[in-house]
């Protein structure tokens, strides 16, 4: 059975976001030949729409207008709702991002339907869609079906693989729409991430409460330096962020960032399930902890039971001399 799917896309000056490309690729396989459309809001959206066609979109709705460049969730919900009425998709997909986690529930409630948040897989069959997502702090997974339409889902990065589909053409529909927000943004500050972004780094070194103080992160920084700051980035557990030892923007876990690096090194991180929810997609995990019972060992490929104050300097030396 064919299905029509609408993707709420995100982009910056470099182009469509990677996750949006993944959602389009995923949508084109879920649609079984139905339509895949994308909505892009804000100045520059018409130009960015072109690349959506190579990932499987057949139609792009744009509001190429400065007044939609700033993300205001209630205003964007009005716009996406308008496009929903034109397209009547069976499924609306959003990124699990600052945009998606605010917009997804608003849309679902506006459309008198349901949303599954932070999904890691979406399936489609004749009965409809099934969405699977982590819950109970990452201890469990739940698979849901929808008894209302449209199905709405926010999807975690890297849940689908982005692939170009050998098609370059599609229809761009420019919408004229004015909407207001009840919320005004007084100030927005981006925390400048120097160099490599946590979510892009092939190696993530993460410190936890067991460091005993902020100076533990200095040692982790040294380790990052010898590995190469083009490869290794530093994360922090929620406990360490809450204690003020490391910036909140580097928090890994359910309520922070989700990372999927080639290598994740948990240094004095106990590995509570809400933390593992942010790193369990890593290809390999190393646990360094003096407590042999620490939960992180259960997900690790390699472990060293010992005091990080001895192990990390030894690792720095071992890498230098290798």
């Amino acid at each position, binding site marked *: 059975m064919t299905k029509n799917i609408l993707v709420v896309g995100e982009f910056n000056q470099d182009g469509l976001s990677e996750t949006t490309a993944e959602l389009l690729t995923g949508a084109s396989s879920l649609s079984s030949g139905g339509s895949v459309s994308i909505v892009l809001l804000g100045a520059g959206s018409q130009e960015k729409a072109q690349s959506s066609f190579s990932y499987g979109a057949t139609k792009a709705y744009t509001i190429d207008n400065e007044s939609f460049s700033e993300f205001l969730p209630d205003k964007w919900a009005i716009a996406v709702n308008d496009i929903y009425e034109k397209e009547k998709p069976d499924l609306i997909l959003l990124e699990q991002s600052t945009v998606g986690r605010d917009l997804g529930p608003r849309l679902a*409630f506006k459309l008198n339907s349901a949303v599954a948040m932070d999904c890691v897989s979406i399936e489609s069959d004749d009965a409809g869609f099934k969405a699977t997502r982590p819950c109970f702090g990452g201890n469990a997974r739940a698979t849901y079906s929808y008894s209302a339409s449209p199905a709405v889902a926010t999807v975690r990065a890297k849940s689908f693989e982005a692939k170009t589909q050998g098609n370059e053409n599609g229809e761009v529909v420019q919408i004229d729409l004015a909407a207001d927000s009840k919320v005004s943004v007084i100030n*927005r500050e981006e925390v400048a991430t120097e160099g490599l972004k946590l979510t892009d780094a092939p190696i993530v070194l993460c410190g936890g409460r067991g460091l005993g103080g902020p100076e533990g992160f200095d040692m982790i920084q040294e380790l990052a330096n010898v*590995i190469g700051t083009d490869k290794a980035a530093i994360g922090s557990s929620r406990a360490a962020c809450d204690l003020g030892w490391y910036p909140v923007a580097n928090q890994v876990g359910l*309520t922070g960032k989700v990372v999927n690096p080639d290598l994740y090194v948990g240094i004095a991180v106990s590995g509570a399930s809400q933390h593992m929810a942010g790193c369990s997609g890593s290809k390999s*995990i190393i646990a360094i902890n003096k407590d042999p019972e620490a939960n992180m060992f259960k997900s690790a490929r390699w472990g060293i039971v010992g005091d990080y104050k001895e192990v990390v300097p030894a690792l720095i030396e*071992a890498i230098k001399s290798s």
Partner: protein
Amino acid sequence: MHFVICAKQIPDPDTPPSAFKIDETKNEVVPAPGISPVLSQFDGIAAEAALRIKEKVGDVKITVISLGKESAQAAIKQVLAMGADEGLLLEDDAFENGDHYTTALVLSEAIKKLGDVDAVFCGRQAADWDMGQVGLGIAQLLEMPCAIIGKDVDISDGKMTVQRVLLDGFETVEMPLPAVVTVSNELGEPRYPKLQQIMQAAKKTVNKWSLADFENLEATQVGEQGRKLKLEKLFIPASDSEVEIIEGESAQEQASALVSRLKDAKIL
């Protein structure tokens, strides 16, 4: 002013993963023996946000609402001990086994029925299902503005100001009352009630409303009957990881062994 705090009682999220069990025939979490359910952590922080404003501006009544079974009284009492004034338990067999939509629907109807609510405080997500949509749902159903994931909340001159945590920064927004805010752990630890406050809380009023108290609600709209998301399967994901503990006489030996494993795996 009148504030509402939405509070949920959940299985203790600090239950060790080894004690976390699921009954896959019922798609339910099996309560870990000896571990009592708790107030969802983010809801305690939402209460903290509301109480800080009450301390600053004075004349505020705070009602804590919970949708749940009789046992959810414990979550309500905890927020009352922190300093809320009155409790409201929404309890009915018809409300059981609902989803996020039905929860937001019943809570929003209760807030409407209270009549004079200026601000609604919710946790950013319940620490069991981790959806993060009930606060937004209440706002949408009541047509109130909403800001999510706040780390600092203030109210003055009929406006709510929220400093929000974004994935890559912060943002400060302002919205007219009545408004809904969801609160995150960056706000700080919730206050710990003193013994005297716990004793006072025991004397505070907790009202109970059932389905019959809501003129606008039918049994078919709430609980299991009203669900729009059907839970097909709840399971513990299989773990295929078998950890290799790197042994050695010294940290140096362990470190060299680990580095050579990483070289062999072409990770370093």
